């Protein structure tokens, strides 16, 4: 590796400082609270308490729902990104703005709006009754929570996939056709492998925020569906129990890092020869 010049180091300094204060130090604080009790004595009780049924359930739900949200996002985003990448440049730009639009608004506002739309006297139910259908309980169902995750995070699935798709040379696709590939063969021999890096980062970018969310489940789950994020919030906000909250956070972080490592391993095969 090349030695960095003083200037390069100086340019990097503000971020290094930022990262140290707001990322590294808090990590140590989380670790400290995890392994100590309320009086500051060393203990493993916090971690042990996570095996209680209540916590196990919210870990299970978190992983299940965010996996579902990730899969649904992928199924919707992949064909959309492909179609988008084959459109004319002007159309691509317009579609891009439409995809990005929700990201310009706060997640809190978006989720709150959906709460209004989906509630018993909300837009959807009013529409259903006017069509003569019975009112549905939408809020508080797993469906609503998963929908909220998909709605909020799907741009993060579309963007990386679109980004790699638009870099696929159209003549490579023509070459595949020329050599005898019809649509399906072209998809699984060329498009899928070449877009894999985008799929992997899309999966990561949807799964990670979904698995750690608390706001979406709180509002659209009507407090009935408690994910890990909600558990952490409850420990810290309501019960003032920083130690168990920290233990939950630490386990969640380990979980996320593990799943990212797994994805990286999976993507590693294709990544290498792609970008030399």
């Amino acid at each position, binding site marked *: 590796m090349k030695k960095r010049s003083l200037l390069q180091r100086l340019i990097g300094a503000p971020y290094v400082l930022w990262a140290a204060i707001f990322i590294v130090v808090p990590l140590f604080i989380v670790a400290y609270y995890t392994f100590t009790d309320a009086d500051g004595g060393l203990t493993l009780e916090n971690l042990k308490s996570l095996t209680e049924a209540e916590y196990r359930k919210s870990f299970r739900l978190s992983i299940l729902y965010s996996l579902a949200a990730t899969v649904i996002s992928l199924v919707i985003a992949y064909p959309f990104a492909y179609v988008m990448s084959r459109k004319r440049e002007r159309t691509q730009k317009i579609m891009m703005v439409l995809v990005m639009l929700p990201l310009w608004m706060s997640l809190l506002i978006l989720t709150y709006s959906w709460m209004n739309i989906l509630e018993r006297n909300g837009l959807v139910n009013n529409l259903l009754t006017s069509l003569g259908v019975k009112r549905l309980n939408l809020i508080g169902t797993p469906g609503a929570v998963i929908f909220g995750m998909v709605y909020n995070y799907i741009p993060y699935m579309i963007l990386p996939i679109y980004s790699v798709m638009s870099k696929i*040379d159209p003549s490579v696709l023509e*070459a*595949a*056709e*020329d050599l*005898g590939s019809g649509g399906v063969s072209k998809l699984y021999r060329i498009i899928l492998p070449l877009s894999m890096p985008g799929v992997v980062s899309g999966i990561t970018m949807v799964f990670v925020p979904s698995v750690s969310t608390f706001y979406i489940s709180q509002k659209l789950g009507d407090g009935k569906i408690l994910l890990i994020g909600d558990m952490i919030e409850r420990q810290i906000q309501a019960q003032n129990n920083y130690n168990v909250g920290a233990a939950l956070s630490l386990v969640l972080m380990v979980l996320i890092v593990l799943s990212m490592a797994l994805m990286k391993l999976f993507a590693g095969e294709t990544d290498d020869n792609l970008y*030399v």
Partner: protein
Amino acid sequence: MNQKNIIELKDITVRFDGETVLDHLNLSIRDGEFVTLLGSSGCGKTTTLRIIAGFLEPDEGEVFFGEKNMNGVPAHKREVNTIFQRYALFPHYNVFDNVAYGLKVRHLPKAEIEQRVHEMLRLVNLEGFAKRSVAKLSGGQQQRVAIARALVLKPKVLLLDEPLSALDAKLRKDMQVELRNIQQATGITFIFVTHDQEEALSMSDTVVVMNEGHIQQIGSPEDIYNEPQNAFVADFIGESNILDGVMKEDYKASFSGHTFRCVDKGFEPNEPVDIVVRPEDVDIVPAEKGMLKGIVTSITFLGVHYEIIVDIGGFKWMIQTTDSAAMGDTVGLSIDPDAIHVMKKSKYSGLYGDYSTFSDEMEEMNQMSEELAEEYAGELAEEKEDEE
């Protein structure tokens, strides 16, 4: 080579956004031929190739492979293969898998795939490279992979879209020879697209000169060079002095104020014509012995010969000769009858001028800078007036 037509394009018209790219084009390609579509960018040559490959459907007209109408048949069902301009290799596959692609799509037995791929790699001199990533190959090697990938399918026709344009000059020459050899060894019909006239002349059995969506001339390289059909072809292929002339009678052409003997006939008496004289066919002789007389305005030494520009009555002739002359000399030009080629007037007549400049761009720039200079002089004068 036999005389059977393997591909026939009938009355093909293609429009992009209302702009006509191919205009009622008709072209027949014989089995086993090396055909080159030659023209500058935008002439429709690549579009023609894409229609044959099946990447593009013509707005009007019919495509025949032998007796079979191919309109509406998608690219992957056509028995032609393409070599793309930038090779379009599959970046996620190694050399072997790239070449094996078409065979795998056809679900051939593994042993056969193995054998055919290795045979192909041997043909293109890439035997040891089977496991290499294609991204790590040089341009020339990538080119060979692209050739092997297409030829391994034993297509009846190979389409080549400017395949040599990304290679350096020497490698290009080698690849020209190699492609020609492969074509002759396999007997596959090659349809080769290029904007490089030298490449077209040196490789092809038949050259198709295209411009503005029309075919200008079809013929052997010799025909195209020696007997250009109009001023466009004469100007595009090689260097030429194109003059305005009159065909007095059979075997007598008049231009630049002199009547020459020539070998062309069959024109009306006194029919206005375009005359082509190739620069290498003009001899420089002492002024008193020349058929034409002019003043040398430029001499460039090019190694093999000198390129001399001679001004004759305002028209600048280009002459390529091994005899030297001095700037400002008055010299005579002598032209043999068979060096004079007479063409019918066409819409291209008068478009190609003399050798005051070599390119149209330079001519426009000269004109523009003159105008700007005048404007500037005017401004200066105004400023001066203001000061006073």
